[in-house]
């Protein structure tokens, strides 16, 4: 999911530690002009060897599993290639043109954007409310926290299969329950109806990922100093005022970080949708990742799939950078 982001953050401390370590050594005055220089050189070499030794495995993995495939995808996107034999049929940018004119891809992109917005719009208030509730001392607090977090721990595929069975038309648990209380479930089922399918998927995603929001917000709440609450109470602030003026603003960095994770996850959404609907009915729940798997491994249009993956990457990159620049900026400043 958020592999790229995770890797990016892993890498930056590794690279920044190099110069930092060097700085401390350079800071030491040289003992003698010639002998000291040699020693310094040797220790310098030793330092680089050390760095190489520790960084190489991670770097090798990074190159093998991230950099090289990305380069191959870019290369592939400029060819028409069915996966057999060498890539020879160079088509320039025409794969990109055909994707951007493809209704299914545009529809998938729109679905992705809708899911980005809906995930945040639904999970933020809901997660915040639950986190605030669970932050109060009450009976069964631990058990409730666990229950809320369980869906997130559950493997995506397992959760998907369970939900797929639950929402089966006619024979599924949900339809049976609805019927037993006299309600009429949708004739084509929750996933078979083109107008309902995406909303059903969003509802399931909310169930799945709400736990993450709640747990992050709860963690953030622990960082709000108790004194502030006490001071507010002394000033006669109501519970609502305390939450609005103190808790939520101080939870800001956590919320913004969660929003970033949620956005990237929504953009790369694949597994849950694949299990529930495979992007159907009639592409109503298709996402960009579904589109590129359909084109790549199912239709053998590897050029198209390569171009789609580059476009997906660029969209995710632009949105991530914008988010960092516009929304996360003040958090970063606060840290530095």
């Amino acid at each position, binding site marked *: 999911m958020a592999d790229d982001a995770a890797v990016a953050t892993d890498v930056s401390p590794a690279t920044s530690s190099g110069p930092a370590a060097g700085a401390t050594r350079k800071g030491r005055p040289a003992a003698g002009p010639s002998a000291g220089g040699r020693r310094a050189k040797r220790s310098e070499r030793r330092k680089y060897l050390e760095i190489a030794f520790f960084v190489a495995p991670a770097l090798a993995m990074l190159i093998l599993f991230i950099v090289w495939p990305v380069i191959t995808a870019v290369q592939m996107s400029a060819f028409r290639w069915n996966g057999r034999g060498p890539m020879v049929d160079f088509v320039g940018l025409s794969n990109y043109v055909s994707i951007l004119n493809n209704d299914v891809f545009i529809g998938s992109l729109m679905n992705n954007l809708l899911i980005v917005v809906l995930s945040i719009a639904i999970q933020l208030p809901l997660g915040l409310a639950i986190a605030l509730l669970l932050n109060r001392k009450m009976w069964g607090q631990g058990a409730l926290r666990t229950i809320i977090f369980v869906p997130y721990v559950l493997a995506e595929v397992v959760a998907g299969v369970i939900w797929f069975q639950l929402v089966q038309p006619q024979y599924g648990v949900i339809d049976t329950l609805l019927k037993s209380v006299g309600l009429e479930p949708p004739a084509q089922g929750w996933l078979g109806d083109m107008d309902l*399918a995406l909303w059903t998927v969003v509802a399931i995603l909310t169930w799945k990922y709400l736990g993450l929001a709640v747990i992050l917000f709860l963690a953030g709440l622990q960082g709000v100093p108790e004194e502030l609450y006490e001071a507010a109470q002394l000033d006669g602030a109501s519970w609502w005022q305390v939450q609005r003026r103190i808790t939520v603003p101080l939870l800001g960095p956590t919320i913004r970080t969660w929003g970033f994770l949620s956005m990237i996850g929504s953009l790369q959404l694949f597994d849950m949708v694949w299990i529930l609907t495979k992007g159907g009915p009639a592409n109503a729940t298709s996402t960009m990742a579904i589109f590129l798997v359909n084109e790549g491994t*199912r239709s*053998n249009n590897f050029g198209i799939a390569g171009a789609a993956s580059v476009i997906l990457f660029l969209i995710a990159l632009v949105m991530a950078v914008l988010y960092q620049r516009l929304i996360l900026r003040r958090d970063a400043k606060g840290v530095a």
Partner: protein
Amino acid sequence: MTRKMRGATAVALGATIALLAGACAGQGTADQESPDSENTAEGGEATVEWWHNSNTGEGKEYYDQVAADFEEANPGVTVQIEAMQHEDMLTKLQAAMQAGSGIPDVFMSRGGGELQNDVDAGLLRDLTEDAAESVEKISAFTGQYTVDDSVYALPFSMGIVGFWYNKDLFEEAGISDVSDSPTIDEFYGYVDQLKAAGIDPASVGAGDKWPAAHYWYYGVVRECTFDTVEAAIESGDYSDECFIKAGENVQDILDKEPFNPGFLATGAQEGPTSASGLLASERVGMELAGHWEPGVVGGLREDETVPDWLGWFAYPTFPGQAGDPSDQMGGGDAWAVSNDAPDVAVDFAEYLVSDEVQTGFAELDMGLPTNPAATDSVANETLAQLIPVRDGGGEAQLYLDTRLGQSIGNAMNDEIALLFAGEAGPQDVVDAIEEAAAAQG
């Protein structure tokens, strides 16, 4: 085994991972490469690497025995078997084909556009001369494995698609005389009667697309002459009116609303809520499916046996149809030999379609044998019912998605799924095929 699990196996493959799988297969594993390098050496010594998908039960045991018999008859030859789950096999084969190395010596091919791709890439051995005798024997079925008059694979099972129905439920609905090859009006009569009896007439796994697409393919087989279809595939020009009619046939059937609730999201054959599962659990009257259906339905039942109530009839005919009524749509599997396989691999492939092996294959109901000497040996009666229809003199059109290759085939299936959802019309399906064909160049 004989079940056709099409559709991607990808569970969570991003494009990057897929790429990587393809690329890593290039390196191959040690045990994959060793037979290839050994098999040319030292006279009689040779290893044949054989991939098949009968990886459980009797089928696996039978193929193990077949390999052992072949080794005994050919001293110095070792058959190295890799029995894999069907989808795993497709993934591994695809990876090997893309890498152009690590390709097994003898493996399964489904023919059509996929075979064409492999042939174009120079990966398959021309069997026309090398296996002339076997090709001759099963010549009725080699058409779909022929590229430019050369045969590249030996078909060992060939089935046709038709309606599998529940005799008990039909009886319950008061349908006493089910025709072997009904007209569309008779078929609509069945639908009405089943509905009147409160039974969902038919299930279709439109969520997986290809089961829905089979309706359209049959529309083509009924409305177009065989030659029209061949000419259209050859030229990429599908402007013949009959392709529109095929879509209209599907629309007419959809207007009758014969399908299970939620069919747009129903899967093909996985689990009790799939289309086959609904048939197996006696919740629908019938399902359009291929010769794999008895095995799939049996596997989805508690007692794991093929139910007695399972019957079969051919896809309905339409008034004024241009296609020969005895033409059917179906497909099968064939043994292909890779280009750098040792010569004895060809002998092995021939042995696999011999009278002896095919008879055992038929007796175990592993598929519908192509060798005429074995066609009487099919043990399951319902399955045996398909043989006279298949061999009834009509042409057998391959599943059109396989025929056209994955690129065009998937674009076509996607559009047919839209047709089922009411989001596209007959003309859109034709346009989608033509566009994909043009894009392929």
